C-alpha cells in the first residue's frame, strides 16, 4: 500500500507547504479577491504573513491544539487563511455550508463542539448566536465582514482584522509557541474535518489527515500536470471536499493562484475576467450555462443564428476528435479553424472558458449532449468520480480517453474493485481516517484492510478498463415483477432536457414506474415569453397545459430510449405529474449539494405518490415550505396527473393485463 510512502523532505502539513511556497514562489500571486470592483491580490509571502498574524491572534484568544474551529462563509481568502491558521495552532478546521439554516448548523456545531467559530458576515453570526441558545459551544465568534456588527455584544466577539492586529502585537511573546506547534504537525495530524451532506440521516464528520490531502493533491496534480501557473476560481461551497482539494490541497501543493469572486451573483463576470486554466463544476453549472447560451441564441438575429448553427455543426464533427488528437480531414480542420475565429472563440470567451486547460465535472451524470457541446468547443472537459471519504478522487479520465458515459480509470495510487453485489470498493492514500465520534459507521464503511464501500453500483468496461456507475446501490431495487429498478438512470435521461430541472422516479416494489418532475424556470419561462404565454408564478407555469404537453413529449422520448435496454425496460414511466414547487434543500427535499432525498420525498408527498398509483387524474395538495429566513408557509395546488405511452414488451404486458 502507498500508506507507508514518505513525502519529499519535511512537507508533511499544509503550513509546511505554505512555507515552501513562500521560499519558492514568494512574489507570485497566491490569492486574489474582487472587492470594490477591483481585483485585490496577495503574494505567497503576503498571504503567509496574514495567516501567521491570524494564527498568533487565535493563540492569544486561547485556541488549543486538537480543538475544532468552525468556518462559515463564502469563498474568501480570509476564510482559507482561517483554515490554515487553525492548522498552525494544531486545531482542526471545520468548514460548514453557509446556506444551512440554524437547525442544521446546530447539529454540526454541537457534534464537533467547536469553541471558536469564524463567520463571514452578520447573517452567519446571527445563526451562530441563535444556535448558541440551545447548543453548548461557540465561546468565541470571529467575523470577517464588519457591516452591521457594531451593536452586537462584543465580550466574546472579534473582527478578524482585529484578531490579526492582536496577533501581530503578540508576535514576540507567542511566536516561539506557534513555531513549536507548526513543527509538531506531521502526516498523521488531522488536516480538516468535513461533514458529508447526508443523503440519508444525520451528517457525518469525515476526518482527513495531512497524508490524505497532500498525497491526493500530489498524485492528481501530477496526473494533470498542474503547476504554479494555473488559475482557479473558488466558488463552490467551502464545506465541500472538492473545494478543499482544489483550492487548498492542490493549490498549496502546486503553488497556483486561487481567485475568489465578489459574490455568487457576479461569478460569471468574475470568471470571464480571470479566465481560469483549471476549472471544476458540477453538471448543473454546465447545464445552466448551455441553457443560457441557447436562450440568448434564440433571441439573436438571423445572421448570428445561422453562423452559430453552422459553426456548431462543424464543431460537433471535428471538435472532440481534434481534442483527442485523432486525425481529422483537412477540410474539417480548416472549417474548424474558421469557426474558432468567428464562433467558438468568442463564445468560449463569453463563458470565461478561453484558457481552460483541464476542466472536470462530477457529482452527477452529465448529459451526453451537454458534455459533447463543451468538448466540441475545444474545452478539455473530463469526468471524475469521487467522494468525501476518498479525499475526492477515486477514478478520473486521462486526456484523450474522454467519454460521457464512463467516469474513467482509477486515479494514481487508488485501487478499485467491484464487490459481489456490484458495489464499488476502493482503497487509497486519500482514504479517510474515521468518522468523528462515530466508530460504528467507520467500521461499517471501512474494513480492516482499508477498503471502503462507496454505496454505488457499477462495473468496469472490459475493452477500455473504464468504470461505469449505474446508480446508488441502495436505490437499485426490484419492481413487483422482479425486473431491475434503477431510478437515477431514468432521472438522468429526463434531466438532460433543458426544460426539466429535477425528476424523481418512483417504482420500487410497484407494478410500474411513475415520475414527479420539476420544470426549469429559466428555460420554460423563456419559452413562455417567446410564445406569449403569461403566467403569474412558478406554480401557474408548471400547471400550464402546454408545459404539460412538452414534458409528456420528453417523457415519451425517454421511455423510447429506456425500452431499448432490455435490462431496464421495466423502468419506463407510465404516469407523471409536474410539481408545484421546486425541490429545495431548505425544505429538506434535497441535500445541500442538491441530491434528491428519496425517503423524505416519498414521505412528504405521500398523497401525490398515492394519486400516481390509484389512477386518479388530479390531486389537491398542500405543501409546507420554508422561506430563506427560516419562516414556514404553505402552498396549495391541484396537480394534474397524465399517462404516457410505453414501448416494447412492457407495453404488451400491460395491454394483456388490462
Amino acid at each position, binding site marked *: 500500500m502507498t500508506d507507508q510512502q514518505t513525502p519529499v523532505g519535511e512537507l508533511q502539513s499544509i503550513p509546511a507547504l505554505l512555507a515552501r511556497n513562500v521560499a519558492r514562489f514568494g512574489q507570485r500571486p497566491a490569492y486574489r479577491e474582487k472587492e470594490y470592483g477591483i481585483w485585490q491580490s496577495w503574494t505567497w509571502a503576503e498571504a503567509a504573513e496574514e495567516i501567521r498574524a491570524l494564527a498568533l491572534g487565535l493563540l492569544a484568544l486561547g485556541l488549543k491544539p486538537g480543538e475544532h474551529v468552525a468556518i462559515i462563509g463564502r469563498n474568501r481568502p480570509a476564510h482559507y487563511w482561517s483554515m490554515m491558521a487553525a492548522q498552525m495552532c494544531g486545531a482542526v478546521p471545520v468548514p460548514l455550508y453557509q446556506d444551512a439554516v440554524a437547525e442544521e448548523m446546530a447539529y454540526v456545531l454541537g457534534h464537533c463542539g467547536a469553541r471558536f467559530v469564524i463567520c463571514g458576515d452578520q447573517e452567519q453570526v446571527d445563526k451562530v448566536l441563535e444556535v448558541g441558545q440551545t447548543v453548548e459551544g461557540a465561546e468565541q465568534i470571529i467575523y470577517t465582514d464588519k457591516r452591521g456588527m457594531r*451593536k452586537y455584544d462584543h465580550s466574546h466577539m472579534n473582527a478578524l482584522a482585529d484578531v490579526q492586529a492582536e496577533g501581530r502585537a503578540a508576535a514576540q511573546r507567542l511566536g516561539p509557541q506557534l513555531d513549536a506547534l507548526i513543527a509538531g504537525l506531521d502526516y498523521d495530524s488531522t488536516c480538516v474535518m468535513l461533514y458529508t451532506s447526508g443523503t440519508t440521516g444525520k451528517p457525518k464528520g469525515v476526518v482527513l489527515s495531512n497524508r490524505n490531502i497532500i498525497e491526493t493533491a500530489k498524485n492528481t496534480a501530477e496526473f494533470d500536470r498542474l503547476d504554479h501557473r494555473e488559475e482557479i476560481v473558488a466558488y463552490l461551497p467551502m464545506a465541500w471536499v472538492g473545494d478543499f482539494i482544489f483550492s487548498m490541497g492542490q493549490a498549496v501543493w502546486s503553488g497556483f493562484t486561487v481567485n475568489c469572486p465578489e459574490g455568487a451573483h457576479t461569478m460569471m*463576470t468574475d470568471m470571464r475576467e480571470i479566465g481560469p486554466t483549471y476549472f471544476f463544476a458540477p453538471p448543473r453549472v454546465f447545464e445552466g450555462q448551455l441553457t443560457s447560451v441557447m436562450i440568448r441564441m434564440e433571441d439573436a438575429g438571423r445572421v448570428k443564428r445561422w453562423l452559430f448553427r453552422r459553426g456548431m455543426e462543424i464543431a460537433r464533427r471535428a471538435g472532440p476528435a481534434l481534442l483527442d488528437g485523432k486525425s481529422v480531414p483537412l477540410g474539417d480542420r480548416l472549417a474548424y479553424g474558421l469557426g474558432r475565429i468567428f464562433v467558438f472563440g468568442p463564445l468560449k470567451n463569453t463563458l470565461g472558458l478561453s484558457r481552460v486547460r483541464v476542466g472536470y465535472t462530477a457529482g452527477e451524470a452529465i448529459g451526453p449532449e451537454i458534455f459533447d457541446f463543451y468538448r466540441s468547443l475545444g474545452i478539455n472537459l473530463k469526468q471524475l468520480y469521487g467522494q468525501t471519504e476518498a479525499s475526492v478522487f477515486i477514478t478520473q479520465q486521462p486526456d484523450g480517453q474522454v467519454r460521457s458515459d464512463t467516469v474513467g480509470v482509477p486515479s494514481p495510487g487508488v485501487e478499485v474493485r467491484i464487490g459481489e453485489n456490484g458495489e464499488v470498493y476502493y482503497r487509497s492514500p486519500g482514504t479517510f481516517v474515521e468518522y468523528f465520534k462515530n466508530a460504528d459507521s467507520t467500521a461499517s464503511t471501512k474494513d480492516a484492510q482499508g477498503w471502503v464501500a462507496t454505496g454505488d453500483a457499477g462495473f468496469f468496461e472490459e475493452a477500455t478498463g473504464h468504470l461505469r456507475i449505474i446508480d446508488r446501490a441502495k436505490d437499485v431495487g426490484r419492481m413487483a415483477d422482479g425486473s431491475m429498478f434503477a431510478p437515477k438512470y431514468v432521472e438522468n435521461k429526463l434531466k438532460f432536457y433543458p426544460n426539466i430541472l429535477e425528476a424523481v422516479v418512483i417504482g420500487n416494489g410497484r407494478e410500474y414506474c411513475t415520475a414527479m418532475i420539476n420544470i426549469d424556470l429559466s428555460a420554460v419561462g423563456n419559452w413562455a415569453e417567446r410564445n406569449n404565454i403569461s403566467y403569474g408564478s412558478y406554480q401557474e407555469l408548471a400547471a400550464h397545459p402546454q408545459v404539460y404537453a412538452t414534458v409528456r413529449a420528453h417523457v415519451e422520448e425517454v421511455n423510447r430510449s429506456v425500452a431499448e435496454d432490455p435490462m431496464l425496460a421495466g423502468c419506463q414511466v407510465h404516469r407523471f405529474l409536474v410539481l408545484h414547487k421546486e425541490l429545495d434543500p431548505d425544505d429538506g427535499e434535497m441535500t445541500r449539494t442538491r441530491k434528491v432525498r428519496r425517503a423524505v420525498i416519498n414521505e412528504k408527498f405521500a398523497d401525490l405518490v398515492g394519486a400516481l398509483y390509484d389512477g386518479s387524474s388530479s390531486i389537491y395538495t398542500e405543501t409546507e415550505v420554508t422561506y430563506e429566513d427560516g419562516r414556514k408557509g404553505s402552498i396549495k395546488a391541484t396537480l394534474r396527473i397524465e399517462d404516457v405511452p410505453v414501448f416494447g414488451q412492457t407495453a404488451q404486458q400491460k395491454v394483456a393485463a388490462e
Partner: protein
Amino acid sequence: MNQMSTEGYVTADGRQIGGVLMEMKNITLRFGGVVAIKDISFDIRQGEIRAIIGPNGAGKSSMLNVISGFYHPQEGEVWFKGYRRGPMKPYQVARLGIARTFQNIALFDGMSVLDNIMTGRLNRMKAGFLSQALWWGAAEREENENREAVEKIIDFLEIQNIRKTPVGRLPYGLKKRVELARALAAEPQLLLLDEPMAGMNVEEKEDMSRFILSVNDEFGTTICLIEHDMGVVMDLSDRVVVMDYGKKIGDGTPAEVRANQEVIDAYLGVAHD
C-alpha cells in the same frame, strides 16, 4: 447656532438621537388659491428616522419638496443646521447635505448603474474642463477617489452584479435601490425618501427596509420618508408626522400616532352627523 437644541432622546432600540437638524416653523404653502400646506411645524432630529404619512392629497410630497428646497413656502421659516434657509437652487441644497429619491424613478436609463451613481458625486468633483477632457492630474485623482466611494455604496447595497448594466434594463425594485445608491453617493446628512416602497412586492419591501435601517445605523444618516405602507412606517420610524388636507393632525412615536383619534378618523373615515 442659537436654534440648535442640544438635548436628544433615546429610542426603544437604544439608539441615541441628537439635537434638532431641521426645523419647520409655521409653514404655509399655496398654489394660487389652493392651500397645500397650512401652518405646519415640526422638527427632524439628528440620527432619527422620521416619517410623514397621510391619505392621498394630504400634502406629503409638497412637504418633502419644501424640505428639499424645491418649493419655497409663502409663510413660515425653514431652519437647517441652526441657520435659517432662504430660497435656494437645487445644487445649493445638495451642497448643504440633503439628498433625495423620487416617487417616480428619475434615473438616466441609458447609463450604467455605476455611471448613475457617479452622478451623485458631481458636487465633489472640482477639476476643470480641460483636465476632465484629458483625464489628467486632478481629474484622474478625483475620479479614483469618487469611484472608490461609489464602489463602497455598491457593496453596501449589494448590487455588484449589475454594476455595468444599463439602468433601463433593470426591474423596478432594483431601480429603486440604484436611486437610493445615487442619493447615498452624495454622502448626505439628511436623506429624503419619497415613497421608497411604492409598487414593490413583500420581498423587495423587506430588502428596502433593511437597507434604510442599515444606512441609518452605519452612516448615521438622518432619514425623512414618505410612505403609504403603514406596517413599514410603524416598524421603521422613530417619530411620525400625520397630515390630512394640508394640516398636521398628529405627531409622535408610532404607538402614540396609532392611538390618536384624529388619525384614526382620517384613515378610516368618520361619520358626519
